[in-house]
């Protein structure tokens, strides 16, 4: 059984540690906030200028002055602070955020990431993605293993890059990979997903952690 979106988010949340400052991207990464392990406290950063992001407001309590990077209404917490966009990206670029969890279109076995543009189709812009992958201490990609039966874990990205050699961990519906100077390694399989299936659906070359086969 491959992991559902919620299970992927729960697996990603298990990477968090007490006291971390965390930036979550749009899509499946947003779900990670629902699965913060009990007993630890993390502060979520919203790149539009907020640390300590709270849950969605109760109906009738939406505040147009309080949104996240996905332009959704949110709330503040007792730990919340606000700041301008230059300081927000100062904390991102300056390496003060512990983990960035974001989606991707393609990841290469050398850690290259493509998630902002498909040439020939409409280009929306990179937003804060290039700053996040360049500056945050650890980058975790959370994505479906394939898109319309096309592999997304590749030898080389074919789409324009968001960052070069920036991805540390990839969590898909089929398993978990780590990437370092030595290349890509499969470190975990989703329950009852065969290694053969992962090999079939992965173009990138990868090692398998001992004991996992």
């Amino acid at each position, binding site marked *: 059984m491959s992991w559902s979106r919620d299970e992927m988010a729960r697996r990603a949340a298990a990477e968090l540690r007490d006291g971390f400052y965390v930036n979550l991207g749009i899509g499946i990464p947003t779900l990670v906030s629902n699965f913060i392990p009990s007993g630890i406290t993390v502060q979520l950063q*919203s*790149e*539009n*200028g*907020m640390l300590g992001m709270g*849950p*969605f*407001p*109760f*109906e009738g*309590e*939406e*505040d*147009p*002055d*309080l*949104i*996240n990077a*996905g*332009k*959704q*209404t*949110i709330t*503040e917490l007792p730990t919340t602070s*606000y*700041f*301008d*966009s*230059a300081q*927000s*990206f*100062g904390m*991102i*670029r300056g390496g003060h955020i512990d983990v960035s969890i974001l989606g991707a279109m393609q990841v290469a076995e050398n850690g*290259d990431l493509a998630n902002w543009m498909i040439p020939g189709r*409409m*280009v*929306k*812009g*990179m*937003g*804060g*993605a*290039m*700053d996040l992958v*360049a*500056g945050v201490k650890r980058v975790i990609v959370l994505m479906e293993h394939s898109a319309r039966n096309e592999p997304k874990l590749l030898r080389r990205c074919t789409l*324009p*890059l*968001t*960052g*070069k*050699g920036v991805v540390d961990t990839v969590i898909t519906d089929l398993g978990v990979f780590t990437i370092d100077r030595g290349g890509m390694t499969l470190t975990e399989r989703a329950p009852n997903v065969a290694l053969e299936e992962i090999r079939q659906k992965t173009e990138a070359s990868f090692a398998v952690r001992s004991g996992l086969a």
Partner: protein
Amino acid sequence: MNKVYPDAHAALAGLLRDGMTIMSGGFGLCGIPEILVAAIRDSGVTGLTMISNNAGIDGAGLGLLLESRQIRKMVSSYVGENQLFADLYLKGELEIEFNPQGTLAERIRAGGAGIPAFFTKTGVGTSVAEGKEIREFDTESYVMERGLVADLAVIHAWKADREGNLVYRKTARNFNPVMATAGRVTVAEVEHLVEPGAIDPDHIHTPGIFVDRIIHATPLEKRIEQRTVRKRGN
């Protein structure tokens, strides 16, 4: 010295000309100077270069100036919410320069602080770095980005005193403070206007030196782009 103008039209008088560059604060529709933007539309000025993180949505924010074809070029990080933008861009009627969001914010901060260029690792190895100087510091590669200034900055704040000291509210702060520093002229629309002394000097976000003109603007539409809520009792 009176910085307070009766309305947006009066505050922009003598400042607008075709082909000029304007910075406009806000993130999405949050913290945008919507009354000043509407007044720029009404002025009919054209050929504008707009520096703004986003391009509004159809019918709101900078979407107004796209509908009236007053923008020639956008400098932004993300314009995905605006369908008209896509149509104009694909027809070749609009130029776009994408900047990574942090690079855009830092270019504006640098411009306002008198720094002509800086080096950042954001975008190294991507199309953003093409044609730009790359330099190595401490074994890591960085790309040179230029500081940005504009002929005019239009911004939104929550509260101002008559001296132009500004306070922002929650995430409506975003690009407004840095843009206030980088406009040759900066016009602020504010929701609350108070007398000097009414704001604790320790609580001022933007000192009045950066603000040339002020309008006290109510009511505001303050549209919400993505209304997300949770149920009570959860």
